[in-house]
């Protein structure tokens, strides 16, 4: 079947199996590998993306169900010019991540929370991310990261999908079929420090 949706501001039409999960559509068909998969049972939240303006667990949404909707992934969190969302900045500054696997989902939920509740208290932050699991951080630094983003909403990137180029679905729109080498040099080609 054919599905048409907007992903990070760009229209996408693809032929898919009716049973294809949204997480696999994003990762395998579109190459947007920032969204992760961790459990299959809607418990871990590494797969959280936005459908319209609502965080959803993309392992339990069919690509067909996303037809006609707006999807936003971690690749669409920063502005088109690369300016990071305050949530992204906050996670780096407050050590809100270690292995990085739950991070995209956590950040998407955090952004949705802050759009609705610009100054959440600790309990509201904890409740917002309570459907997601992090094995590394023990959550306290994630809470601090979100608080940092709330405290720095002005002067940094603002909410809302970036105005991505027509062909650009985010970085992995470059969707390489080629071998992803993982030598140190290439790893760090994108990973400078953030002073």
């Amino acid at each position, binding site marked *: 079947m054919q599905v048409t949706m907007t992903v990070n501001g760009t229209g996408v039409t693809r032929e898919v199996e009716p049973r294809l999960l949204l997480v696999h559509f994003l990762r395998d068909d579109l190459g947007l*590998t920032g969204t992760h998969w961790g459990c*299959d049972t809607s418990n871990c939240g590494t797969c959280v993306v936005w459908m319209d303006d609502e965080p959803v667990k993309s392992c339990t949404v069919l690509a067909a169900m996303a037809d006609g909707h707006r999807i936003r992934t971690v690749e669409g*969190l920063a502005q088109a010019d690369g300016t990071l969302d305050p949530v992204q900045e906050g996670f*780096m500054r407050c050590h809100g991540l270690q292995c990085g696997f739950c*991070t995209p989902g956590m950040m998407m939920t955090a952004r949705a929370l802050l759009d609705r509740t610009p100054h959440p208290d600790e309990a509201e932050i904890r409740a917002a*991310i309570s459907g997601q699991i992090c094995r590394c*951080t023990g959550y306290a630094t994630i809470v601090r990261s979100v608080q940092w983003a709330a405290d720095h909403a002005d002067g940094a990137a603002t909410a809302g999908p970036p105005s991505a180029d027509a062909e650009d679905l985010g970085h992995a729109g470059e969707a390489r079929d080629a071998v992803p080498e993982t030598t*140190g040099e290439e790893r760090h080609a994108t990973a400078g*420090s953030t002073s």
Partner: protein
Amino acid sequence: MTTVERPPTRRAEEIDNDQHPVGHGRMLRKEDPRFVRGRGRYTDDVRLPGMLHMAILRSPVAHARIVSVDTSAAEAHPGVRAVITGEALAAQGLAWMPTLSNDVQAVLATDKVRFQGQEVACVVADDRYAARDALELIDVEYDILPPVVDARHALDADAPVIRDDLEGKADNHCFDWEAGDAAATDAVFADADVVVSQDVVYPRVHPAPMETCGCVADFDPVEGRLTLWSTSQAPHAHRTLYALVAGLPEHKIRVISPDIGGGFGNKVPIYPGYVCAIVGSLLTGKPVKWMEDRSENLTSTGFARDYIMRGEIAATKDGKILALRTNVLADHGAFNGTAAPVKYPAGFFGVFTGSYDLKAAYCHMTAVYTNKAPGGVAYACSFRITEAVYLVERLVSRLAAELGQDPARLRLANFIRPDQFPYATPTGWVYDSGDYAATLREAMRIAGYDDLRAEQARRRERGELMGIGVSTFTEAVGAGPRKHMDILGLGMADGCDLRVHPTGKAVVRLSVQSQGQGHETTFAQIVGEELGISPDDIDVVHGDTDNTPFGLGTYGSRSTPVSGAAAALVARKVRDKARVIASAMLEVAPDDLEWVKGSFQVAGDPGRSVTIQEIAMRAHGAGDLPEGVEGSLDAQITYNPPNLTYPNGAYICVVDVDPGTAQVRVRRFVAVDDCGTRINPMIIEGQVHGGLADGLGMALMEIIAFDPEGNCLGGSLMDYLIPTALETPDWETGFTVTPSPHHPIGAKGVGESATVGSPAAIVNAVIDALAPYGITGLDMPLTPSRVWEAMQGHPTPPI
């Protein structure tokens, strides 16, 4: 300029950070910019041209003879490229593989299945959905056998023999092991005023990293070369084992561990899936990806713990601890897949004497096979020190309760004193350094311990159930030395290469592999500190056997104790080379130069100096170099640690138990850790936080249980509960610093400390809260139903 973030600021942290402004300090992580953009590169992100997908058919039952495997319908599926059975592997001699404990494990079952979830066959197909579809088409006929589920009955005379694949095997005995002096210990016990005994169960739990295990195997039939992207904490050791298992020449195998979504020990073993994917690629000539799903991860990969322990503690009537004695029944599952140094079948459980100065100690352990998944050393356990610390800390708190003494003050009275280091324990370990009393006093200060006890007394009068739990621990991390410690003959040492480019930028190559620990930052800081250059100018390469030196990998908190030492020493080698070149540049003798953070100065003449960058350019530049100096500053080293490092900590937990529902809430948790020199306090605290959450999970909710038929009851994250942001408190951390005397920069490991130390603090707190009910012992996990049963006087063991 190095990025240094200071909040939250405490004076002690400022001092700690400012000691080493160039390298060490609260530097933001170099890896984070890619992770927050969704640009991490994990194994499942690898896509190769023509890549196929593999799925594994697993046993639905715990114990059965395989009568037949019919793959014809699966092979007829249009998307299927290959179906592999145990029989097919047996024809190639690949049906069995060695485990990390010198046992063997079935890659795909041939004769019997021995646990629910065991690998029986696999399908290689065009996409992951087709591969799954085809699994449904494989018809396996099983002849069901009675399973051995309860380890307590594994050695019964009529127990079914699980390992009849082992020649002459007539029972389910795995091994026996002992440590300490039994006779000396018995003698102390016989004369002691007080003996307290306690049954303690540490149930089976699972590391459950957020990223499951998987790989992409790409065999190039022309070059005869295998490239394997895999979720491996030990890529070099895995490469050697693949060479031994598959018969491929080792120089034709490249193992790449890209970004790893958490390991916690789960990604140390070689799993059948990796071997099957390699075989799939050999058969099809295409790259083959295998990613297990969450149920496969929970039911078939390395579990942790599963120790049934009885501990005894002997003391004087005024609370001087004299001796410890313990007997352990260890459930190792169907194959002994323990990932521990070969001479240590019980891991480092021998450090069960903890932080106390004892006259004697003795442990005896019997390990058995059961019809459960293999594993045993995983989940940030420091080679079984989790179990050891949990046992001794439960016993010491129980002793304090029996004597009517405060558990913190009883510990203070029994600690090994600073002047006793190096301290040889009754079970043969030599602790390097520590000031245990200072660490516990710092935890008591942060917690406001005396005020908490006063509050507890007030609440008790009102019928409220507030508990305060104390746990202190000594860890043993950083395996080797290689003469005592090896994995299947591979000595536990680690290499490090350091290249300094002409402009003074550097690349350091490690044999260890991060699973989130922040190696790209910490190791850049270590080298930066030694060379006096910014960590931002140092790139860290790891996780690729073609581009890094050999070493045993990251587990058991060994990266900083072993590879961290290697990184510091290789940088000092570079500095030694630089000194000779600098002496030529400044026309003085090498001995007349002083190293002053990033440059060599002529002693007594600070105006005459050259920077490390200038020296690096000279090393590669035109013109003659001093005699005997090669044309670079590059250096390499293999570090064989002289001893383990022994971090320690003191944890205090405050819980409230709801008298109506038996729900346990962790209100506060104070963790004071001493891991020696602190390289990046932010990363250390992060690791401590994570370990505390793990400990809370094990104490309150995590368990891999089985029903009497051997069905796994923890096979999804709906059944295997992991703490969320709602159950975890805002951790309070502190530190003391007692450097390791034998580590080049005094650092000790810390990655597992909190997982080791925290469960006992939480359980001791709950037992303390329930003292009004006369409760003196409780086993994890402390779920509301199990606590409720205990409050009603009918506790049930978890297994």
